[in-house]
């Protein structure tokens, strides 16, 4: 349980209250996350994120965020942004990190620093259509955390394991999801 002394900047009480409140209101728990994307030129696109739906109504982030995506010059692109697959790594690492902070707070463990490296390996013969046996996406993803906290190694490992268990991005990467792509 959280103690007053521990402060990782996570309002665990609000999360626990929300958990209680949503137990009896499954409709309010239905969220929809959105992004819009606009082609610029070549492999360059600009995506924006502002609104989402949740707690039964439209919601807005405080500010709109833009994301440039492109491919590097070795792919004969202009490299005006990181590749879409790198955004996936950002999503995974930031989701697990948020989870680490929340779980540590809930368990009364003070964090001093949480750093991670994420690496996804990919055989690009897949996307280039060279070998149909090779998948397009990552064949392996490795996240390495370095955590400094008032806790034993085992407690830290347990926090990281729990953050994976409750991570939306980890889930959607490790399990299949239905994807519909259509044209208006």
């Amino acid at each position, binding site marked *: 349980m959280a103690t007053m002394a521990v402060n990782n900047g996570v309002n665990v009480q609000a999360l626990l209250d929300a958990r209680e409140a949503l137990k009896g209101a499954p409709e309010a728990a239905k969220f929809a996350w959105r992004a819009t994307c606009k082609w610029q030129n070549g492999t360059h696109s600009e995506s924006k994120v502002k609104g989402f739906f949740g707690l039964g109504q439209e919601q807005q982030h405080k500010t709109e965020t833009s994301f440039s995506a492109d491919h590097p010059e070795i792919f004969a692109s202009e490299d005006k942004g990181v590749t879409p697959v790198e955004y996936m790594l950002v999503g995974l690492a930031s989701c697990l990190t948020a989870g680490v902070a929340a779980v540590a707070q809930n368990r009364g463990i003070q964090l001093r620093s949480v750093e991670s490296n994420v690496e996804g390996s990919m055989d690009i013969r897949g996307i280039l259509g060279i070998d149909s046996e090779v998948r397009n996406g990552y064949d392996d993803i490795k996240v390495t955390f370095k955590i400094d906290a008032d806790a034993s190694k*085992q407690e830290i490992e*347990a926090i990281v*394991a729990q953050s*994976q*268990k409750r991570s939306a991005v*980890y889930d959607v990467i*490790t*399990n*299949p999801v239905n994807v519909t792509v259509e044209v208006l």
Partner: protein
Amino acid sequence: MIGAGHAGLAASRFLTDRSIDHVVLERGDVANSWRTERWDSLRLLTPNWQSRLPGLAYDGPDPDGYMSSSEVVAFIDRFARVSNAPVRTRTSVTSVRPADGGYEVITSTGAIRCRCLVLASGACNVASVPAVAAGVPPSIVQVTPFDYRNPANLPDGGVLVVGGSATGVQLAAEIQQSGRPVTLSVGEHVRLPRTYRGRDVLWWMDASGVWNQRYDEIDDLTRARRLPSPQLVGTAERSTLDLNALAGLGVTLVGRLAAIRDGRALFSGGLRNVFSLADLKMERLLATFDAWARASGREADVGAVERFAPTQVPASSPLQLDLTRRGIRSVVWATGFHPDYRWLDVPVLDEKGGLRHDGGVVDDAPGLYALGLPVLRRRKSTFIHGIEDDARDVIDHLVSHLDSPGASRSTA
């Protein structure tokens, strides 16, 4: 009382002790599910010396052994006889509804009015099979633990066993050893060694008080009640049957079954983390045992501290399996069980079909009780020896209800 298994009979014993008029309804014979719904090799997870019911302890020749189903039947039968339980066998309950401040129970042999009713009909009446089962190609045989008796029931060829509970690991081991190559799909599971520091791990659960932890002291009771059974098997060798042991037998371990698309089973890539979670939880439990042994001065009664190798992550674990092409001829759904309350016409179920109750006292239904459900009042609730304390508490509540002025409206 509905159900003449160990739970209903234990409660009956306490009612008899208080001279309260009652009847135990049983759809078949005493200990019916142990007679008819168990696979051949099944043995209790608890050692014989732990098999005790109110006033009846195991007195056979093998206190460290594990009872077979027929031995459990004999033990419960004997308990029914020595406690002279008023059992009405071959009597199925078809409906229960509130009536006159009590309940009306419609059975295959007539209607009964009662002031109080205890549901002791078991936690494992129906096999829970996930919706993804609909995607299994029709040429593949599907069985639940209720259909399964032994490996010879299955066609020759590969077997996909889904679920890493005691049931899943036990069936995976014996099917693999029958020459049918097993792929075992595991999600979150409970890893335990059979023995720890020279004692049965369930001796530790009992002695250290972990098993006695009360339902109202548990942080996440919903989770505790949904926990799969621990990966244990009762054998003469007292061997551990964890995932490392299964991998050693040649079983292929894959992640949680997430979907079946076009005859292809898709498994979660999160296998490594479910291993970590189970290893960490086991280590935490063993550390609890060690701390208890130190604090209680029991160090001399047990062996040296042991630690176990982490669950070995397979070098390559398939994320998908084309079932028919890869020779899978049958699927065993070891994906849990749930109670059957279709005959219960009282609005006491939650949105998932579970009984709403507080330690066996059913919510918003005065006089209605339950026994024998997971962590009903204590962590040991579903084990045979765990029923005594639960039944005593629940019958205490029932008796105070009978004595309360509110219940006197009843005419029965």
